[in-house]
């Protein structure tokens, strides 16, 4: 009896001890056996390169090994397909290039974690679509040095006439997609027109404005009046709301830009990097927001707003103004709301300024190359030529059309030289929303290794209020101030991210406290001092050094 009791106790003890250690154990599992398979690929690459000159080549390629391709499955595809390989787009791509591809996808919303696991496991797919520029710890140059991906300079020269031609014609893009050391590392996702970079902005209820006999607000003061009217006359309980939990919207916050500030780094008039969240403009922004919050003009639930909650408030009249994309937000809300409120209409409002009629100095615009959804070839890839030719296809003429419009005669027809989507896309017989039917046939409607064509957007925006958004939202000089895609050196990057992590956490926390009024704005100076004590200067030095290196690329 005594003995068995002891045994039970012992086992329990073992279980507890291992439970206690599981916290670190589970994270570190599967970390062995990562070094194999690095060298073989580079040999294959140089060998294959000598065989064939770039000019004599034509698609499709002779059949060969299946390549593996890792990428996020975007929600508009995932709604109908479990794997990108099942879509008409992927089948057409395989047919045109002669390359069979096996697609691998991380679970939705877990791209970064899954990427980390793949890195730890060391068993790399041939091609990986990821934001290598920002999300590989240590930056893209380190990814090459770590032996994860290969430098593409030789590969471009040998097998990629299309992308070379494109880069020659667009030297500013060429500069963006290189590392400081001059290495190409990805087949980039590029927005081919400035209109494609102005996809986020303010919007508000046009029908309410008409009813209240008010104009679209262009200054902070006018916005105050409009929101007050929404609250008092239209009974909105949260006149202005937006997806505060989505960092994308915090970065593109037009009300903050109105005060010539930003929450992160921006490019000053002196050509140097500045950190917006410690400057006078940020204080003014906080003061205004705190005031609005107190007056009930801003959603009281701001901090926990996700896309569903915002959609609900925007369509049921609790809110009258918000911000977001013209497609996935404005369009979706309008079509959802007109079912119950036929007169419902949203209108885009420009990036606000402080003085009436002044062109805002700051505003949201995305860079043509943001680093997202760009494809690198890994060191595990045995047939680099095949992968390179597959990816280069999209940057050529035929590939460009296929990636942006799909298959001629099926998803689009040429009308007076303009690729026009067919009813298969615009009025899908199976009842798919346009965003989903588009995503099935081509990648230009979201992202990927391609140059996005503005003619897609012109047709994707079907409502008048959507069509005017690029003009309205682009009316500012924000392009001058957006931070370029610089990369710290691999030595600096760890220090940089350590510093910025602490600062960003503190900034996010204090920003909400200031807005909610739980922290008085008299303490703004203390807040600035605290951030400076977290070594902001050092981070700025690193950022500016990176900027210098970028400029001299």
């Amino acid at each position, binding site marked *: 009896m005594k003995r068995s009791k002891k045994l039970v*106790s012992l086992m329990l003890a073992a279980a507890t001890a291992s439970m*206690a*250690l599981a*916290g*670190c154990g589970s*994270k570190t599992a599967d*970390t062995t056996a990562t070094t194999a398979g690095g060298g073989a690929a580079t040999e294959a690459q140089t060998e294959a390169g000598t065989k064939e000159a770039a000019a004599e080549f034509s698609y499709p390629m002779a059949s060969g090994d299946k390549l593996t391709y890792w990428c996020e499955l975007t929600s508009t595809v995932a709604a109908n397909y479990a794997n990108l390989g099942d879509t008409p787009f992927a089948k057409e791509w395989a047919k045109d290039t002669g390359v069979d591809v096996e697609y691998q996808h991380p679970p939705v919303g877990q791209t970064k974690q899954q990427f980390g696991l793949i890195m730890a496991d060391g068993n790399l797919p041939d091609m990986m679509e990821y934001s290598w520029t920002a999300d590989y710890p240590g930056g893209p140059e380190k990814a090459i040095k770590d032996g994860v991906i290969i430098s593409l300079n030789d590969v471009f020269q040998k097998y990629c006439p299309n992308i070379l031609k494109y880069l020659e014609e667009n030297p500013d893009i060429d500069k963006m997609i290189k590392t400081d050391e001059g290495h190409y590392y990805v087949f980039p996702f590029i927005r081919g027109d400035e209109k494609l970079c102005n996809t986020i902005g303010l919007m508000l209820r046009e029908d309410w404005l008409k009813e209240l006999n008010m104009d679209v607000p262009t200054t902070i003061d006018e916005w105050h009046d409009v929101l007050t009217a929404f609250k008092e006359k239209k009974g909105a309980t949260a006149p202005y709301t937006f997806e505060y939990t989505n960092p994308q919207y915090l970065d593109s916050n037009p009300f903050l830009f109105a005060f010539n500030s930003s929450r992160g780094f921006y490019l000053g008039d002196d050509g140097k990097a500045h950190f917006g969240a410690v400057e006078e403009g940020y204080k003014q922004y906080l003061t205004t927001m705190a005031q609005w919050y107190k007056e009930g003009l801003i959603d*009281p639930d701001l901090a*926990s707003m996700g896309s569903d909650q915002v959609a609900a408030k925007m369509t049921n009249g609790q809110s009258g103004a918000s911000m977001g994309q013209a497609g996935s937000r404005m369009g979706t809300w309008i079509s959802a709301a007109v079912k119950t409120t036929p007169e419902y209409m949203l209108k885009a409002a420009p990036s606000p300024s402080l003085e009436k009629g002044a062109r805002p100095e700051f505003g949201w615009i995305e860079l043509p190359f943001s680093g997202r959804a760009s494809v690198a070839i890994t060191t595990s890839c045995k047939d680099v030529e095949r992968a390179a030719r597959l990816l280069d296809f999209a940057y050529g003429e035929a590939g460009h059309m296929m990636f942006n419009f799909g298959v001629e005669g099926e998803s689009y027809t040429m009308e007076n030289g303009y690729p026009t989507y067919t009813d298969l896309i615009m009025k899908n017989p199976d009842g798919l929303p346009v965003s989903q039917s588009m995503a099935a046939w081509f990648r230009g409607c979201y992202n990927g290794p391609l140059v996005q064509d503005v003619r897609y957007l012109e047709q994707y925006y079907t409502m008048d209020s959507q069509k005017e958004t690029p003009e309205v939202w682009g009316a500012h000089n924000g392009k001058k101030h957006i931070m370029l895609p610089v990369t710290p050196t691999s030595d600096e990057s760890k220090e940089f991210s350590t510093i910025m992590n602490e600062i960003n*956490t503190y900034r996010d926390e204090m920003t909400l406290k200031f807005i909610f009024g739980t922290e008085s704005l008299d303490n703004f100076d203390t807040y600035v001092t605290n951030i400076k004590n977290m070594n902001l200067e050092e981070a700025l030095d690193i950022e500016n050094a990176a900027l210098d290196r970028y400029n001299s690329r």
Partner: protein
Amino acid sequence: MNKEKSSFRYRAAKDWKRNRSLYLLVLPVLIFYIMFHYKPMYGAIIAFKDYTPRLGVNGSPWVGLENFNRFFKSIYFVRLIKNTILLSLYNLIFGFPAPIILALLLNEVRSKKFKSVAQTITYLPHFISLIVVTGMLTNFAMTSGLFNDIIVMLGGSRSALLQNPKLYRTIYVASSVWQEIGWSSIIYLSALAGVDSQLYEAAQIDGAGKWKQLLNVTMPAIAPTIIIMLILKIGGLMNMGYEKTILLYNPATYDTADIISSYVYRVGLLEQDWSYSTAIGLFNSVINFGLLIFANRLSKRYSETSLW
């Protein structure tokens, strides 16, 4: 000859012969623990290294205590420790007795039907996915949500509950208790079922009422179960998972909500700083280990039950 007989080898061989089937029986369990709990511990070494996946565990350069220093020097260190301890302490104080009380109450219920219905209802929430539970909580806690409707009915005023750092722990702990009370009570119910009914009869004859029976028969009978569960709980005290926290918190509530594991998640996993997150994890485990030993000592001193 005699000496040899008492040697460990000899005894082990003899024991093996005699209890071969028992050893075989325990083998899969042992393998499981070695494979999935002891072998991975070796990976904890990366807490002392600057780990890069391509270089592997052995190939990564040694940095000593740098990762630990970084954590100790972080301005959030004190707050993280405080929040983790407080949150788990509240969870223990409110979450531990609740299932025991529920089990005792259910044990007294005479109607079988009522008992099983009550049991089912209380343990159903355990099966709801955490993401659904937090989704419900987020919506209920909004200014237009259910919780606020109730507050208004009771004469209060509306506010965004999940934006208030003072309420965060209450919401977190209360929802945990609600979700786990029924499920955790099962083990106590089974312990209660094992109590000899003769003991109750004897107590009744001695003139003990229901309350006296509870104190003098039921409680001593299930005390070993309670103590073992308590020690296990204390051993895992610092092991607060990040999932619920990252689903419930927002920058406005970092003050009370941000705990070690959510910090590790933000800094370590999202930034892929494996060495750093392992260092914090290891630090956490060492504290847990200390707590476990402490709890065991305590229980050994004041009662007869202990793990070893």
